[in-house]
């Protein structure tokens, strides 16, 4: 049996194709890409864009330990709904993924329950405590795709230097959460006029920038690769731009909320506007957009961070940080970046596919004959309203409820299998 995806506009940044093409899938792989192809079954993608399945370098699936927020099964469904076929899971679970046994458990759960491809990262330090490094060679052998202490920074520069050196020896990229928590320990939002008015402890931009700068310098010294997670400030973009110009092997990501919302949204005291790093200001959004357009920012990741309604339904300062993002990411990229003309649709697809895949050398993010049939079909013009009740994720913590957006996923295919499909698809 063959499946044809026909009449669509194919965008594959890896090969530079942006044209009318049909795809023929056989088994788990792409058999042919060409014109006037037909399978024994066909998906009519007329009016839609056909692209590689989206790749997200930054998700929290909460398993093991917090399965009431999300599991690998529900998280992977949310990913499929959002058009993603490959995600990198963060290791700040309970227990954290800091040894081979826990990593093996996650890999086994992914094989048993996930409908898309899960690429687990592992902790860089034991118990994410920032003191002793994990057994990275073994973690790599078991299947870790990267190391990170995401959620907190490694405060000791000594430890950070050695972690970068050792990770590089093991062929692992370090994913850096940049936050100098010695500057502020109780911050809950961006420090600025809004935090002043609300009287809430602020997180100054320098908290992020100090660590972006330090971590890049340590990586340069170690000759190690480093990937900066969730960039949110104008100066972080600038620091990274200059580092790249000097030839330092640094890459970075931002998340859709950081180019969509400012800290004005926190004025509502909606705890779904609380995340770490926090929402910044318009000047930062402008710089993030510029960085996405000029290539300083390499990719877009969601930082999908599910929390139960009850946990978020509390006083702002008590609420946990984080929002879900997998099911709104593509639409926000199209609505906030492509439609206003900040970037082209081709660049948007690149930011969500080949670019993130290249950072960690994932076998994903491109469409080629003989390659995995990981494909998303989406209608970039379709308008819809975000309704958290329709999320496949276990959690509903989004600041975008009720927002009108453009760009709807019609079908997601992972390894040749339809993992998500809208009703109105041919």
């Amino acid at each position, binding site marked *: 049996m063959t499946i044809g995806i026909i009449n669509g506009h194919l965008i594959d940044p890896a090969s530079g194709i942006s044209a009318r093409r049909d795809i023929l899938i056989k088994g788990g792989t792409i058999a042919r890409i060409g014109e006037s192809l037909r399978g024994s079954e066909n998906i009519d993608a007329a009016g839609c864009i056909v692209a590689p399945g989206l790749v997200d370098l930054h998700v929290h699936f909460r398993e093991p330990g917090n399965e009431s927020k999300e599991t690998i099964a529900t998280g992977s469904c949310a990913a499929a709904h959002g058009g993603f076929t490959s995600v990198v899971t963060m290791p700040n679970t309970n227990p954290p993924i800091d040894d081979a046994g826990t990593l093996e458990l996650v890999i086994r759960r992914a094989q048993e329950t996930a409908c898309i491809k899960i690429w687990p990262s592992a902790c860089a330090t034991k118990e994410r405590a920032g003191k002793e490094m994990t057994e990275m060679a073994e973690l790599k052998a078991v299947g870790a795709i990267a190391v990170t202490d995401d959620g907190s920074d490694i405060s000791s520069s000594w430890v950070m230097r050695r972690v970068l050196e050792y990770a590089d020896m093991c062929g692992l990229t370090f994913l850096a959460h940049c936050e100098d928590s010695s500057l502020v320990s109780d911050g809950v939002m961006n*420090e600025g*006029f809004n935090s002043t008015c*609300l*009287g809430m402890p602020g997180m100054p931009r320098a908290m992020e920038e100090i660590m972006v700068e330090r971590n890049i310098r340590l990586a340069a010294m170690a000759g190690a690769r480093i990937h900066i997670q969730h960039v949110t400030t104008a100066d972080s973009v600038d620091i990274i731009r200059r580092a790249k110009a000097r030839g330092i092997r640094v890459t970075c990501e931002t998340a859709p909320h950081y180019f969509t919302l400012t800290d004005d949204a926190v004025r509502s005291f909606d705890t779904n506007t609380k995340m770490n790093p926090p929402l910044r200001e318009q000047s930062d959004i402008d710089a993030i957009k510029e960085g996405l357009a000029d290539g300083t920012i390499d990719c877009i990741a969601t930082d999908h961070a599910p929390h139960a309604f009850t946990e978020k339904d509390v006083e702002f300062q008590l609420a946990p940080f984080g929002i879900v993002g997998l099911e709104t990411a593509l639409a926000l990229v199209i609505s906030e970046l492509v439609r206003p003309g900040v970037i082209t649709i081709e660049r948007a697809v690149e930011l969500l596919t080949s670019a993130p895949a290249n950072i960690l050398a994932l076998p994903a993010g491109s469409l080629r004959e003989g390659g995995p049939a990981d494909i998303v079909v989406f209608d970039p013009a379709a308008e819809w309203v975000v309704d958290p009740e329709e999320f496949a994720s276990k959690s509903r913590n989004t600041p975008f409820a009720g927002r009108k957006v453009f760009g709807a996923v019609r079908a997601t295919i992972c390894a040749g299998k339809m993992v998500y499909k809208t009703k109105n698809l041919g």
Partner: protein
Amino acid sequence: MMTPVRTWNRKDLIGIEELSRPEIELILDTAPQFVAVSARESGIKKVPLLQGRLVVNWFYEPSTRTRTSFELAAKRLSADTLSIAASASSSVKGESLHDTLANIEAMHSDIIVLRHYYAGAPHMLAKRHASHIINAGDGRHEHPTQALLDAYTMLDHVRTLRGDRHATLDGLRVALIGDVAHSRVARSNIWCLTKLGARVVLCGPRTLMPPEIGRMGVDVSYNLHEAIHDADVIYALRIQLERQQSCLFPSLREYIKLFRIDRESLKVAPPHALIMHPGPINRDVELAAEVADSSRSVVLQQVTNGVAVRMAVMHLLANQPGRRTAPAATEERAP
């Protein structure tokens, strides 16, 4: 003369920031009748405006002055009152704020007076629950009734001084001195005074001045003399002694040298300048005893006016005088 607004349309009093000048003026104009109630020669300091209503004082932070003031205000309006002293641990480990209020409301409360240590707590409750919520202080965010009683006290003084019943605070120069960063009193006062046309200057250590505060429409100075030399009102904020340990200023000794309101520093201020303080005073720290007890201090009038202003607020919220139909109770429902 401008026609004053005579209807109150809000379910709650959460902050001054969202109020319009006419709304603030309506509260201030409603207060004198309640000043009169408390000062009745008959000694019967009570009116039946809230008879049969239940006012719940729900305080997560210890407070003597504010809680007593609200309780007296409710009693002088003939309401039934209930006090709940909640502790920090009960809210973190126990039921949620929404659940606690739902339980209180199940006993048919009318007005909830909430003091909470986190910003936005009254805002969050007001959106979902039918009771009238009065913010009695939320974190460092707002303390609206304090700002209203302060404005009333200033207005009363200005009107007496000028012999003009219709005098306003337009052009009045007010200096707020001390720990602005941690002060909800400062924030509410800034919104209230600037909306009423007063000119506000803030003064205190740089480390206790929050970023970009100038955008609230105030001037900032780190020099006490500069701040008070032309002030009509000098308002000292309470300094919390433990701030010294978080490296916000070196010592009380140096704080006193730079920022204390005392006979010496007042030499540069106009002789008519009024001295105010939200209480409780750290005597001889932010305010010298000789000044606190002097004739230019209106600290105790603030307390007296506090009861009347809170009576006015409760009356407006619960009775909505001048309004024909009751407002919609809830804007949002729990899913």
